């Protein structure tokens, strides 16, 4: 502003002087009274001198201003050189530095500055390209991470540092009943719902504690079924080691827990079953040792009990081992063509004494032309004897046990059926009679048993021989147990 005003003053002075000298000359020529007065004044000042002074002052001022302008340009050039072009915007800095000597310096400076700018722009463009590549890589990595998380069968949920949903897979959506595409950034408590408030609090607590991964077992409902999940909550850290979220992984361990429970039950059952005869053996032995039996008859009775309980224990251990061997696939199976009719005949001989003792009639079957099966003879003998002895045990005196075979040529299988007129099994317990250690509650008083016999039958028929067991029963009427096996083919018979 000051520069412009000075320039205006100079120009105005020059113009005023010019006008004054011009008017003076004009007044001399016109001869008016006013002009005369001015002329008189002018006569006292030499016109040429005034003009010279005015012109000289103008030239000096112009030179002085040119000098300042040149210095200013030099300063700008220096500022640009120094990379401080922004200082031009500062009025004081600008006018204080009006010390330009040569305009070429300015052009040179600007050229250099533009060159620098071009280099920088090229660098920036390269950086932008690098960043674009990195963004694409990041996007690809993000998609890969999403694909991995989506392919995991476990439920995976990621929350940010404000407990809002960042990422979740389908398993998580199914478990907590939300659709990820519509639920992004939904707060944790809202996402999991009121039913899982305690679980939401646990996740939030894990994030706030900033600790290592935290593990907990939780029970959740999935499709109406109660399931057990192994839940691991891990904090996610950024580069400055600040927690920026949490990853929640829920692994379904329902099956493992069920297996664990079954193992525990098995051990518990085995322990109970082994200890029961052992308790009798221990107690009776102690009584004998302590001389608590006064007569020979009682002593014999005690010896008999000990022997029977020892046999019971031995059978039990054998059954447990067989069950275990079959389940683990370690049992040795020697399959050969066997006539079921012949096998049944042998087993009937074995059960005959026991049936007669109980006054239970055993009805055999008529021979069948071709009922050969390709089986392990010992195992099939045990299957038949288990079914027969079970039938005899639960049939009251005067009752009947019948065994028969049927050949289904269309289906190419043979069926063995054992029917008794025993106590029968309540309808709600029929399905469980083949379960390990299961004994029908109402029938426990009827006969002793371990609950392993029918389980062994099922294992031997179904797991070892690809057959099928079946049962029907009616309380007070009797039961029908049986199994079916594939008939031996001509090839298998011919190989022997």
């Amino acid at each position, binding site marked *: 502003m000051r520069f412009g005003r000075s320039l205006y003053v100079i120009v105005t002075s020059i113009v005023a002087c010019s006008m004054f000298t011009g008017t003076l000359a004009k007044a001399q020529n016109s001869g008016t009274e006013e002009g005369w007065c001015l002329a008189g004044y002018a006569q006292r000042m030499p016109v040429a001198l005034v003009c010279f002074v005015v012109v000289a002052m103008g030239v000096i001022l112009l030179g002085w201003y040119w000098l300042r302008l040149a210095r200013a340009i030099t300063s700008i050039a220096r500022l640009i050189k120094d990379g401080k072009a922004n200082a031009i915007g500062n009025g004081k800095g600008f006018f204080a530095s009006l010390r330009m000597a040569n305009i070429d310096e300015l052009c040179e400076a600007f050229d250099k500055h533009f060159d620098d700018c071009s280099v920088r722009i090229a660098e920036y463009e390269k950086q932008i390209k690098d960043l674009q590549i990195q963004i694409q890589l990041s996007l690809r990595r993000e998609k890969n991470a999403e694909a991995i998380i989506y392919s995991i069968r476990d439920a995976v949920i990621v929350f940010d540092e404000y407990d809002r949903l960042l990422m979740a897979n389908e398993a998580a959506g199914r478990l907590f009943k939300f659709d990820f595409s519509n639920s992004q950034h939904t707060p944790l408590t809202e996402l999991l719902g009121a039913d899982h408030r305690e679980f939401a609090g646990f996740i939030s607590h894990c994030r706030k504690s900033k600790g290592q991964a935290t593990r907990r077992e939780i029970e959740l409902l999935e499709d109406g079924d109660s399931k057990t999940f192994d839940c691991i909550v891990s904090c996610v850290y950024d580069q400055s080691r600040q927690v920026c979220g949490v990853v929640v992984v829920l692994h379904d361990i329902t099956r493992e827990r069920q297996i664990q429970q079954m193992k525990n039950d098995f051990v*518990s059952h085995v*322990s*109970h079953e082994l*200890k*029961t005869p*052992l*308790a*009798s*053996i*221990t*107690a*009776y032995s*102690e*009584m004998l040792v*302590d001389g*608590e*039996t006064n007569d020979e008859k*009682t002593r014999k009775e005690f010896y008999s*009990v000990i022997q029977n*309980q020892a046999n019971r224990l031995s059978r039990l251990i054998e059954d447990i081992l067989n069950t275990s061997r079959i389940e683990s696939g370690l049992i040795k199976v020697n399959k050969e063509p066997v006539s079921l009719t012949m096998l049944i005949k042998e087993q009937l001989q074995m059960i005959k004494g026991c049936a007669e003792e109980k006054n239970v009639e055993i009805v055999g079957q008529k021979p069948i032309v071709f009922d050969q099966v390709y089986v392990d003879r010992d195992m099939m003998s045990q299957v038949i004897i288990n079914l027969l002895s079970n039938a005899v045990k639960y049939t009251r005196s005067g009752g009947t046990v019948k065994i028969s075979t049927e050949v289904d040529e269309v289906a190419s299988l043979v069926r063995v059926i054992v029917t008794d007129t025993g106590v029968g099994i309540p309808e709600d317990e029929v399905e469980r009679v083949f379960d390990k250690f299961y004994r029908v*509650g*109402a029938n*426990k*008083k009827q006969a002793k048993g371990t609950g392993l016999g029918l389980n062994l039958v099922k294992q031997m028929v179904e797991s070892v021989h690809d057959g099928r067991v079946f049962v029907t029963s009616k309380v007070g009427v009797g039961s029908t147990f049986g199994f079916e096996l594939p008939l031996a083919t001509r090839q298998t018979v011919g190989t022997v």
Partner: protein
Amino acid sequence: MADKRVLIVDDEIHIIHVVAIKLRNNGYEVISADNGAEAFDLAMRDKPNIIVTDFQMPVMTGLELVEKLRQHEETKDIPVIMLTARSFAISQEQQDELRISGCLSKPFSPKELLGNIEDILYEKELVTDN
């Protein structure tokens, strides 16, 4: 000691048999049942001085039997000894809550059982006398 009546409850007839002989040889009167429901009826009717019961039985388990005994005025103070083939089947809290006087793990010694019965009845006598 002849007036002391013991109720033995077990679904294993051999256990009842051997314990009964041991107790009778030592002057006790023995009554027996093979399940909890039958044992409860006997306890209400015969008022035994002590009950020895198995833990796992059909119809009504040993624990259910004790719970039922504790709910009735006539049977609520009868001492109970529990026989169990399963370790840790009964927690100490359950024992305290149901006032189970003792637990014996199968296989058990009839001598040890007799000793427990005598101790419990003696302790009960002292409390009653005071």
